């Protein structure tokens, strides 16, 4: 029964790292209870955090991290050539996350800050998400990724379904958890325009949503921004809030107004 239902059979998986903290790769290693089952379903061809052997022969590529150097772009193009399916893991790869903060300021200044006098040796470009360079088939979102969401993505890919990614906003999940809303605590929150899937993790622990999963499919940003302003946020603060995880989107939109754009 259902012999041919699976769309992928024991794919060879390669995990690549660009600019990131490697936390999402760790989440995969932390699967502990499920790792044995997972290894029945896939085979790792390349996974630097976990094993030493490396193979150039893989079907499914998982990319962690943001594009911060010209050489990253080259690497991505090669991966896209080799892999039948390419997905990202974590906020650095999409929407661009913490590395994207570099875009809020001067890129060269950022290089100097990090590499000092050797900055010229490491040509740095404005930070981009992976899908700004190559086509991406799916995103596993989050900072770091959620274990369950990763597993669901995996089973979906194997059985031939679209990986689950909620189109709606964090508020939907937050309200289902009966959390006290950040706005009712006198704070503000980006949950209303941010894609769900994390189970409203941050508001559930008394914090607020920072937008780490990028925009939802149908965000009403003007309305949220009007609300944020009404709650006393300055335009600069609102821009900074967005930039924390969505620096690429915000930054690129800003640059579009530049003379050469």
């Amino acid at each position, binding site marked *: *029964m*259902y*012999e*041919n*239902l*699976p*769309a992928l059979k024991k794919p060879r998986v390669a995990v690549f790292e660009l600019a990131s903290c490697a936390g999402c790769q760790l989440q995969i290693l932390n699967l502990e209870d499920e790792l044995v089952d997972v290894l029945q379903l896939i085979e790792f061809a390349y996974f630097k955090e976990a094993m030493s052997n490396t193979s150039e022969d893989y079907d499914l590529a998982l990319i962690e991290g943001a594009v911060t150097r010209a050489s990253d772009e080259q690497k991505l193009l090669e991966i896209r050539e080799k892999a039948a399916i390419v997905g990202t893991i974590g906020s650095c790869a999409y929407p661009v996350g913490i590395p994207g903060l570099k875009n809020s300021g001067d890129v060269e200044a950022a290089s100097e800050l990090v590499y000092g006098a050797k900055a010229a040796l490491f040509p740095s470009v404005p930070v981009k998400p992976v899908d700004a360079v190559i086509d991406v088939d799916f995103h596993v979102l989050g900072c770091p990724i959620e274990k369950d969401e990763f597993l669901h993505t995996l089973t979906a890919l194997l*059985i*031939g*379904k*679209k990986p689950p990614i909620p189109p709606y906003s964090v508020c939907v999940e937050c309200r289902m958890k009966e959390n006290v809303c950040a706005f009712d605590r006198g704070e503000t929150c980006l949950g209303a325009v941010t894609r769900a899937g994390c189970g409203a993790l941050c508001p559930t622990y008394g914090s607020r949503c920072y937008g780490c999963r990028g925009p939802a499919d149908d965000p009403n940003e003007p309305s949220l921004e009007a609300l944020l302003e009404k709650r006393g946020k300055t335009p600069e603060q609102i821009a900074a809030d967005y930039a924390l995880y969505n620096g690429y989107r915000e930054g690129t939109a800003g640059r579009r107004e530049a003379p050469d754009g």
Partner: protein
Amino acid sequence: MNVQTAAEFILDSPFLPRSAEIIRKDRLNDTETLYQLRLMDGSELGHLPGQFVELSVYGVGEAPFSISSSPTRGRTFELCIRRVGDVTGGLERLGLGDQVGIRGPLGRGFPVETMRGKKALLIAGGLGIVPLRSLIVNILDEREDFGDVTILYGSKSPDDLLFRDELTQWEAREDVDFRMTTDIAGPKWKGNVGPVTTLFRRIEVDSRNTVPVMVGPPVMFRHVVKQVLACGIPEDRIIMSLERRMKCGIGECGHCQINGVYVCQEGPVFTYAELKRMEEAML
């Protein structure tokens, strides 16, 4: 507490499908496949033309599909399915002998009984031929019960025409006026080119005794309804079948609502008179 506990009750799930086996699979086109199915318990589906089923590819999900075969054709039934996503893609990877889940027949079908003795004007656009085929075959199998039968079928291009063998048979029949058209011509196409409405000019409609039945995309409805009304056919005799997002198929989940109406339950077959009042019908 001396109360009867919940566990003592025997309950039924409206979500429990019956198993059906795929016994035939014909590729009709790049994206459309015709599946012939048989319920594992040996029973007949017992549907009316125009009704639909919810089909499960377990592990992938469940989706609604019109029943394309006629109830006059015995213990199997057919679905004609376009590959667009998860369930439809998963189904395509299944083989003969694989089992799917079936809930239904669901919804309100075409008014076959009240159509008996009357003339039938059957109009299909695109995939609309899939549910309409059930009615067409039913009428042709019981031909003597019905008056004149006119069938108009429009598709995007000659390559998109479905059920080609049957189309040829319908075309050959003396007791049926069958016409087709395609929006764009193809190299070998000698037939009519243009939307279904262009076929309309060539037929005569007896406004007193004709029941028009149409299934197709919203744009087709808008134009064809105008023409049918112009022939003097009353609004409550114009029959149309709609498509909406559906999940449960039983009037619970809310997805298929048009204003206050559940398409899965009160439809998918409606009269124009019923739909006209509803803004969200988008006619």
